[in-house]
């Protein structure tokens, strides 16, 4: 067509210019006109979206709900379960329809991505009050439990110990990730080092918990430096993946070094902690004997609870004090801008290594507490999933926020643990329904949902550590933490 209109092919322009000329020709000089797209009514649109979602869910779950591979006599067998599949599709359809019809009912903006930067607002110091209340509850928890819930005392106390262990680990990792901005996916390595150094020292040299605790912390800190040194130049995601590799290496070595660590059998017979030499057991020289009270196994749990509470509070205290020291300031400066740090003469090597070492030390403390609580450790307890859980707690809580770590631990660890008690659901899903099976499933889903809902974490405002004249909270969108650069 263009050949006919142009006088000769010789002076015809090439490439893009020619294309645009052809297009103009084709439109015969008219301005481009596009018909406005017809808009469906809300009901039709919702139905369409629901249909698409249901179709997608059908495709996704086709080989997971409908077909199930089982090990049978002559190899593998396939069983069909169309009910679950159809129910899943129906749930997806109805859920999406309701969401589209009622929640996303408003006109969607065609251009997204612009967000208002929250102004720095002076708020009621809810964080401080909440922190104080939580501390008070934590301090009196054993008494509260024995008064109000004596039947489940031991179970809940054990759960509290577990949560506090994660709080402590979270606070320890917060130094590395939240303050210094070094993304560490192998934090469990230091936890393992602490646990194994205590367990091996205690079983080989007959040392007690309180002697080994500082040594375990020291070893872990040493490992923090050893593993931190090679990765000094790395940033962001690369750092994450190398620390992950280190964590896995330590686990594989623990698993295969039979003579030293006992391999997959782990270390048995780790001693329990004592209170100034008083054991928490029956008989002569025990705690109950010394104070002349009747023996109860709960006493040991209460003691363990106070140990981990003290350790966790120590972590918090040290972190808060460190933030006010030059090295803490340097950590936060490093997180914000490494190049600026270097140009201001901060020794980034030392700053990074102190962050790694301090974080690792608290991980080591927590590890030796874990060993003494369990009485038995094996490499199975130190898989990558633990690192992921700890990092998730730190990030979900809001990087760098101490209170956030507590809230995230309670929500994630405690909330997941609650699933164990949901045996009432068996009435709905049949007797074969085991809620604990879904623990990690829901954990993973919760991680995704909380992150999508609040990308900055549950506690997203920060109070600055350096203050000039008056204190202002920093809005979530101005917090550049953990950018990893």
């Amino acid at each position, binding site marked *: 067509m263009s050949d006919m209109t142009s006088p000769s092919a010789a002076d015809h322009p090439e490439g893009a210019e020619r294309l645009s000329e052809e297009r103009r020709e084709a439109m015969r000089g008219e301005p481009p006109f596009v018909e406005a797209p017809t808009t469906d009514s809300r009901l039709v649109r919702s139905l369409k979206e629901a249909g698409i979602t249901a179709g997608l869910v059908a495709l996704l779950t086709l080989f997971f*709900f409908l077909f199930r591979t089982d090990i049978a006599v002559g190899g593998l067998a396939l069983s069909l379960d169309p009910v679950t599949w159809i129910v899943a599709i129906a749930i997806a359809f109805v859920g999406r329809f309701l969401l589209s019809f009622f929640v996303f009912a408003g006109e969607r903006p065609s251009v997204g991505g612009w967000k208002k930067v929250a102004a720095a607002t002076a708020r009621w110091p809810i964080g401080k009050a909440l922190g104080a209340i939580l501390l008070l509850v934590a301090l009196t928890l054993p008494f509260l439990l024995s008064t109000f819930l004596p039947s489940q005392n031991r179970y809940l106390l054990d759960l509290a110990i577990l949560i506090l262990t994660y709080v402590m680990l979270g606070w320890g990792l917060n130094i590395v990730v939240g303050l210094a901005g070094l*993304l560490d996916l192998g934090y469990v390595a230091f936890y393992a080092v602490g646990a194994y150094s205590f367990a091996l020292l205690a079983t080989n040299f007959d040392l007690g918990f309180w002697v080994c605790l500082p040594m375990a912390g020291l070893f872990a800190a040493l490992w923090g430096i050893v593993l931190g040194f090679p990765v000094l130049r790395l940033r962001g995601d690369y750092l994450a993946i190398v620390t992950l590799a280190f964590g896995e290496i330590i686990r594989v070595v623990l698993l295969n070094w039979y003579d030293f660590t006992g391999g997959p059998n782990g270390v048995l017979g780790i001693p329990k902690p004592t209170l100034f030499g008083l054991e928490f057991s029956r008989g002569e020289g025990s705690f109950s004997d010394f104070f002349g009270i009747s023996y109860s196994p709960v006493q040991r749990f209460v003691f363990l609870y106070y140990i981990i509470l003290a350790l966790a509070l120590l972590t918090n205290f040290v972190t808060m004090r460190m933030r006010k020291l030059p090295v803490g300031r340097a950590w936060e400066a490093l997180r914000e801008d490494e190049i600026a740090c270097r140009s201001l003469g901060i020794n980034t090597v030392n700053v990074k290594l102190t962050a790694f070492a301090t974080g690792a030390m608290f991980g080591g403390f927590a590890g030796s507490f874990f060993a003494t609580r369990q009485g038995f450790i094996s490499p199975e307890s130190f898989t990558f999933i633990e690192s992921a859980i700890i990092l998730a707690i730190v990030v979900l809580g809001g990087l760098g926020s101490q209170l956030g770590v507590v809230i995230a631990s309670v929500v994630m660890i405690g909330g997941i643990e609650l699933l164990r008690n949901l045996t009432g659901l068996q009435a709905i899903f049949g007797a074969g329904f085991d809620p604990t099976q879904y623990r990690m499933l829901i954990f993973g889903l919760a991680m995704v949902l909380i992150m999508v809902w609040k990308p900055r974490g549950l506690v997203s405002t920060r109070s600055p550590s350096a203050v000039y004249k008056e204190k202002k909270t920093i809005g979530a969108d101005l917090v550049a933490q953990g950018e990893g650069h």
Partner: protein
Amino acid sequence: MEYFLQQLINGVTLGSIYGLIAIGYTMVYGIIGMINFAHGEIFMIGSFIALAVFLALAAIGITFLPLVILLMIIVAMLCTAAWGWTIERVAYRPLRGSFRLAPLITAIGMSIFLQNFVQVTQGARVKPLPPQIQGGLTLMDSPSGIVVQISWIQIIIIAMTVVLMTAFSLIISRTSLGRQQRACEQDRKMASLLGVNVDRTISLTFVMGAALAAVAGMMFLLYYGVIDFYIGFIAGVKAFTAAVLGGIGSLPGAMLGGLAIGLIETFWSGYFSVEYKDVAAFSILAIVLIFMPSGLLGRPEVEKV
């Protein structure tokens, strides 16, 4: 010598599988700069779908092997691609433009979710599949009694990898989709200003990566004959190592890195110890990142202030 050759063949086969997974990592990292932690799980899902398809076909009486394999590939690629798309849509797209740690956390969350989803729906026990493709070519039959053999399944794996790699490179270098992907990789904002649908391009990148991972998963199933819900993690980390080793963001690099990791792992198990083969792979990752952060074929990162 014969032993060496045999290990070489095994290493190249393993490396092909790693390479196919590594492409997914390298493309996603190149285009949005995040580690798609759930990619290993995508690979695992691909192998489970392939297994289910195989059993379903056997149940309705289709046992003609080439047809079975073809159907396995097509269905596994399709369904796994749907998973890849959904994961991107649900877990990563809402967080685009958020700070860098957020998508990493959702990726880890997704990975945990997918692992447990498969565990709950398909059971925690390993699924053994008896070898379907027997026999092979004997390349060398030395008097010492060591036979160098390349089995048919190894030939299929290597050939399929070569074909897929070639097709993929052509897509990236010749088609308009590939051009859009390269544009997004260089500068996402500029690409969107010039009319590239960035969200669609990123989605398609996930879809393509997932489809390749599905093929890798199917080949893993046929080659090793044993899968469980946990295979994705280790394979994922190793494939990521391969992507980093080859230079992240570079397609030939991913393949080269995959081969290198496969060979290192095979030779390490063949000559040193099987227990520490993972340590070897992870140490390589650490050493490469520390001394050669841009990998074998990657571009060095320029630091702008």
